[in-house]
């Protein structure tokens, strides 16, 4: 089986996954206790509420039979007619919302993935190469403690700490350090290509990305340490060393490349942080990204918005999965596409 056929098969197999996901979203919102019309009406009493409810339900087509609504919903998704938000941003195209909110979360996710890769993995490898030394213990314990700190707690603590840093950061405090930013708020991504814009946007997102990436940083540290340990005791490493391969070449080519294999799914799965894990961090740091948007859409029963976001998330997840499998074969030629016989 060649790569293309494999890819096609994976794509076909992903259709039921997508279908299940969007159907579940539909059911949760439309069959569950949420009523988008009630969310629009807001906290008012009786007569008006009831009339408004009826009127809005009619406007939104919530009184149609459920299967009619379902078919309409699915057809709209499949044809990428993602519609307009009902509750949160009434009348606005969900695609436009996605474009507005998406980049901030991607920016957050980008740094949240990058920070652990550049801190967690090197530290893990360092530990693995210096196993059972004091340096290893120090790094490992830090990793475990880091892993154990829950996001929501760390976020609040970090906020409180960075708010009281008048004497740190060369006496400027965090908000005035290097460039003037506010601790809480969405990064301005419109000037990313200028140095100043990039610095501001990066600095603005760093605390949040640090928190969001903290769990994976610990994970990656532990996993890369284990992976290095396993590889380093393999016979072929001894062999390589015996034939006189230099230490750098040994680590670079033989140890690291093999140690990367178990790390790939870990790193790619972190991309899902963009979706699930970011809600809380986004809320605490006031970033107003796609995580918050999705959460609010779900809880207010904003079906077109929640459904479209879910649809996009599922597509994203499935494609990351496929990409990950393809990536495997690039790194490790031993993994093929043929079925085992």
């Amino acid at each position: 089986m060649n790569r293309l056929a494999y890819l096609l098969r994976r794509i076909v197999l992903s259709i039921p996954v997508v279908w299940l996901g969007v159907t579940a979203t539909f059911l949760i919102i439309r069959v569950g206790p949420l009523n988008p019309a009630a969310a629009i009406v807001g906290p008012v009493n009786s007569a008006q509420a009831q009339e408004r409810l009826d009127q809005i339900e009619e406007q939104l087509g919530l009184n149609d039979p459920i299967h009619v609504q379902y078919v309409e919903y699915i057809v709209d998704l499949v044809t990428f007619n993602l519609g307009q938000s009902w509750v949160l941003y009434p009348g606005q195209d969900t695609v436009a919302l996605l474009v507005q909110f998406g980049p901030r979360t991607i920016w957050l996710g980008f740094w949240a993935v990058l920070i652990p890769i550049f801190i967690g993995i090197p530290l893990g490898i360092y530990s693995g190469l210096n196993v059972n030394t004091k340096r290893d213990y120090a790094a490992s314990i830090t990793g475990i403690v880091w892993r154990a700190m829950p996001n929501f707690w760390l976020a609040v603590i970090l906020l409180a700490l960075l708010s009281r840093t008048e004497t740190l950061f060369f006496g400027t405090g965090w908000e005035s350090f290097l460039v003037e930013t506010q601790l809480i708020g969405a990064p301005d991504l419109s000037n990313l290509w200028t140095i100043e814009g990039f610095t501001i946007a990066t600095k603005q997102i760093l605390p949040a990305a640090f928190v969001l990436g903290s769990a994976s940083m610990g994970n990656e540290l532990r996993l890369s340490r284990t992976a290095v340990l396993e590889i380093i005791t393999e016979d072929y490493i001894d062999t390589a060393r015996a034939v006189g391969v230099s230490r750098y070449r040994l680590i670079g080519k033989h140890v690291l490349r093999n140690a990367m294999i178990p790390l790939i799914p870990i790193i790619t799965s972190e991309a899902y942080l963009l979706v699930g894990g970011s809600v809380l961090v986004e809320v605490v740091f006031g970033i107003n990204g796609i995580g918050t948007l999705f959460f609010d859409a779900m809880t207010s029963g904003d079906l077109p918005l929640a459904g479209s976001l879910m649809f996009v998330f599922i597509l994203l997840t499935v494609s990351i999965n496929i990409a990950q499998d393809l990536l495997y074969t690039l790194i490790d030629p031993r993994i093929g596409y043929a079925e085992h016989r």
Partner: protein
Amino acid sequence: MPETDPQDGAPRRTFLKIAGSVGTVGLAGCTGGDTGEADGNGDTDTETDTDGSETNTEDETAGNTLSLSIPDASNFDPVQIKDDGSQLVSDHVFSELFTLPAESIEPTAQLVSDYTVSEDGQTYTFELREDVTFHNGEQLTAQDVVYSWERLAASENSQEGENILEGGFQIAHETTTETVDGEEQEVYEPGSLAVEAIDEYTVETTLESPFFDALFWFAYGSLSPVPEGIVGDIEGYDGEMEYSEFSSQNPIGTGPYRIESVSTGTEVVLAADEEYHGEQPGPDQLSMQVVTDTDAIHQRAMNRNVDVFQLPNSRFDPSKVSIDETDDLGQEIGTYGPLDNGDTVNYSTWDEAYTAYFIFDCSRVEKPIRQALNYAVNQENFVEQGFRGVGEPAFHQAPPSVYPGGKEAYDRHAEENFPYGYREAQLDQARSVMEDAGYGEDNRASITLSLYNDRNPDAYSRIADLIRSKAQSIYIDLEINRAPFNTIIDEAVSGNLDMYTLGNGLEYPSPMDMLKFGRPYDGNLVRWREDPSDASERAAEAWEEIQDNLGPTDAEQEARNEAFIQMEEAIWEDAIYLTNYHPRGRQWWYDHVDVPIQPSGFHDRLFDGVTFE
């Protein structure tokens, strides 16, 4: 506020006569410039002076930008139902024909220079000011008003149409019968609204029947004029822009601020409009950042990222408040501090004109249980323990500021007549009511209390615990359920809840706006009709009486007031609610800005009167 009542009762005509002169003269002051009264006037003047000379240094001081946190920013269209953040933006972008001056809740002319009311009190003729321009440069004309109100009535985007199509205040219109799901419904016939442009600057509108608070509705946000044909959501207009652009990116009105930039759901920046019809706004820009998390809101305030802010209830410490003065409308003004960052800041509160209560579904919870629960609680504890002492215990449906006779009369009437213990719990009575109804230790009643978990969750949790522990001792097992607001309202409409949290803010200052819910009718969430009694009949009769006396005369006002009190008492008798409290609005601000005191919940929240020290 004893003065509320006589003012309300003053013959409208007197007011109308002087309105012509008030119209132009009063306009300068009505936008909040003189809100500060004692301390505000001087500042306003110096501000205008320094404003011109300050332009050079503006860049260094980052201009006069007022920073705020807002809870949401989504749709700014006047005819849509909005949350607080969007409302704040909308209030600054749009002006209404009338407005409330800072010192009273009596509407004064804003976009009109003169107006008359016909002999029968039904036809209003407005002369529009000729110097008002929209933010797109077009002049405000009578056609704009006609278009805007037709949009309110007929647009598919309108969620506020019933404000002019139903209830006591109705602009005359025709309806057609439409069949929806086999049910015949009366719907508005597009184009039939009785509002007409007589000439370029004269608008005439006819009400279905005279209404005492009509001017209030002309000061209501959803009746704000927008440029004619700006969106094509009613017949005869193609629209100059897409609806979503108008509603969320580029709303155009005649208010003190125009949109500078909108980053959906994240940030709204408003810029002072040079052509504004009122006094030139203080801040050159309003920068509003959307922040939803209470910790983040608090942190932003502590980091001085905002000039004016609200502290979340969970961060509020009543012992840090010191009130220095109380104003005419009951506003409290003082200081709060020290904050976590060491500063002591300015603080003010005002009457929100809101009543929060627990609703009983009378078809599910029988009267003795409702009464017993009313006996068992002391509303004072709700305020003290739930809301940290901010707000007033509620006994009537009408908040004190609009109660006939004002706060004094409110307190007196409650103290003398509230049957279930004024500011005290009467557990013995509660028990005997239950015992008379056949309940006891061996035969306990059980009901479920549903709370919203998205509005003041900590306060409501404490209050629910309080009610539960009281209920326990009067043979009632109270189960507490938590759900988001929209689930609660949905379940309530379907009739699946016993008792639940709800509240209502008044749109215009009359008990009628609250008491319209306190009578037996189809669709009432209380379902009083399903549990009929003498009291429910009395309430229905009193309501009829009110409907027959909606005119502006003193006699009619008196008849209404009497009926209001009858309704309040009938509601007490059948204990269809467990009243909770009347909240107060609160605001904090740092010393470097001078913020006009928000007069009441009826007034738009406006920051154009803010000056910088």
